[in-house]
């Protein structure tokens, strides 16, 4: 069962259930009730993007448990008091498994977890942990490194670009790994970044992509855009482009370089299993290629075969843990040492990264 709710129908529902409550008293939940799983996301769920990837991650859970789970997706909920109220309501309605799909839901979701020890909460891209509260994030940088290799092989101008939402560590690491991957193929390649300072403004994102193309960037990394704004501009201009989360190949049949896709289903499934078994333990889930959460799909056939072979080798090494994009020596953009030769950044150092590697020409906003 899947019910798609918008805020409006939710409020209508709330009014109706409030009425029913007033008339007939509270409905008790029996032990054999299905497990209510609610996903709350900040943006509308389209055919692509972040919200779509999260919702798609619940499909295998539904397939595995059938009638034993009831999944509700609540989309387009702004971070803030609105989200807190809606998450509180969904838990009060008896849903015991909550997926809070945005960083800004953190405080409200954590309070819900503390007040309701029998509820399991998964929270996107946060850092707080509680016994029944796990933050989760994807190691996008593992995928962007691989796409950097492909981009360098295809670039004629030696200049790559990235349209990026906000200068936060998660996005900075993706740009850095992209640059390092490109340098592994062509050491003197340069990367320009345009920070649009918005999670959602398709027109501005497209302008940014065009600004990069005007500077002769011929492969563009759409870093955290939920719509095909950048990807379709790439197809129009005949430059390669790639993005995160879910494939946008249908918007750029010729110039789609690939997608750093996220498949949350292994993590969601394992968490639901643990919740039902009563063994769930909150922990920081930073998941990548090895966890089968991050996966590069839809590789462009234009990528030369020898480069593709190299990419596949590195991908296998990332999966078995013998390679990390952030193994030194790595120089920062300002010339100082970022990672010493032979050293590898730990997960906690990666999630706190606030510097660009050498080769990124745009200064990082302070």
């Amino acid at each position, binding site marked *: 069962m899947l019910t798609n709710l918008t805020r409006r129908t939710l409020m209508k529902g709330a009014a109706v259930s409030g009425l029913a409550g007033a008339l007939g008293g509270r409905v008790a939940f029996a032990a054999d009730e299905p497990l209510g799983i609610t996903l709350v996301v900040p943006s509308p769920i389209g055919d692509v993007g972040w919200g779509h990837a999260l919702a798609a991650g619940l499909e295998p859970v539904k397939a595995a448990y059938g009638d034993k789970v009831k999944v509700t997706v609540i989309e387009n909920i702004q971070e803030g008091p609105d989200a807190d109220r809606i998450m509180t309501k969904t838990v009060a309605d008896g849903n015991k498994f909550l997926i809070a799909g945005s960083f800004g839901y953190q405080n409200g979701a954590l309070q819900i977890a503390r007040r309701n020890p029998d509820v399991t909460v998964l929270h996107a891209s946060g850092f707080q942990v509680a016994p029944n509260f796990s933050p989760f994030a994807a190691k996008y940088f593992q995928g962007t490194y691989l796409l950097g290799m492909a981009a360098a092989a295809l670039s004629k101008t030696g200049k790559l670009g990235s349209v990026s939402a906000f200068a936060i560590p998660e996005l900075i690491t993706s740009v850095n790994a992209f640059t390092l991957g490109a340098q592994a193929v062509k050491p003197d390649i340069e990367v320009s970044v345009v920070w649009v300072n918005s999670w959602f403004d398709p027109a501005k994102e497209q*302008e940014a992509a065009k600004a990069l193309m005007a*500077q002769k960037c011929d492969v563009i990394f759409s870093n955290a855009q939920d719509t095909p704004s950048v990807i379709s501009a790439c197809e129009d201009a005949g430059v390669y482009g790639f993005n995160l989360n879910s494939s946008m190949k249908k918007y750029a049949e010729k110039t789609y370089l690939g997608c750093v896709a996220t498949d949350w289903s292994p993590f969601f499934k394992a968490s639901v299993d643990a919740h039902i078994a009563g063994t769930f333990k909150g922990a920081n889930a930073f998941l990548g290629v090895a966890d089968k959460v991050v996966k590069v799909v839809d590789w462009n056939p234009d990528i030369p075969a020898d480069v593709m072979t190299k990419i596949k080798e590195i991908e296998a090494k990332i999966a078995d843990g013998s390679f990390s994009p952030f193994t030194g020596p790595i120089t920062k953009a300002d010339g100082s040492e970022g990672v010493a030769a032979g050293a590898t950044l730990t997960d906690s150092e990666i999630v706190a990264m606030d510097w660009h590697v050498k080769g990124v020409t745009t200064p990082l906003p302070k």
Partner: protein
Amino acid sequence: MNAIEFILAGMLAAATPFLLAALGELVVERAGVLNLGVEGLMALGAVLAFIVVYHGGGHVMGFVAAGLGGAALSLVFALVVLGFRANQVAAGLAIGILGQGLSALFGKSYESLTVKGLPKLALPWLSDIPVVGGLFVQDVVVWLSLAATLAIWATLAYTKTGLVVRAIGENPKAAHAIGYPVVAVRFAAVAFGGMMAGFAGAYAAVVYTPLWADGMIAGRGWIAIALVVFGTWLTGRIFLGACLFGAVSLMGLAAQATGLDVPSQLLSSLPYLVTIVVLGIISADRRLLKLNGVASLGEPFDR
């Protein structure tokens, strides 16, 4: 193409959504009505145009649908504020929110889909000039918007219709006393403003960024309203303001792409800063504001 050429080539297209919506709002305000619902009217126009174009109706029909939709919703606003003399600020905000809600509802199954934009037309000779040539390679809607700017300027400044609209905005009682239908003219002005906002939304969704996504207008309607004040209710200044805003926002992106060492947050806020500064300079001259300001703006008409 260097950064300057990029800005010059993109400036007019970036300015067009602001320009179309601001021209409409100019006429509305000149008639003495303040419509703050532009953002929602643009969103509604955007989704209607997108749906029509997506289903193969073509860009012309898309703009027609957007114009009709914008006009229809703004007539609801007109009915509330002119018919029932409700507070214009509150009613405008409400209509704006309604427009955004309707756009999300209609656009639900079109989320993140794309359509083909319009080809760019180059003016012969002019487009071959180095550096500034890009200015003369624009899509047909940009050229039509420039024509509309001229037409609205000429109408307001030199025709009897323009004079009647301005008189009604200046002193509705006097205009009524000499026999002009104040409420009817205001209805027409509001509908015109709604149509232009619909066009502006249509341009954003089927030409400039040819895709639909809920919330894609992203505050442009508010900028359009600000531009009307910024331009002290004068067509030429509103045009310059829209171009300035478009150019400065492209400049911020181009500066980053070239690797200029300026914080991107500053660059992102630059269009707003420039607008505020210019607004401040203009408002400093009280005489100018008094001369061009609309005396009865936002006041309900009581005969």
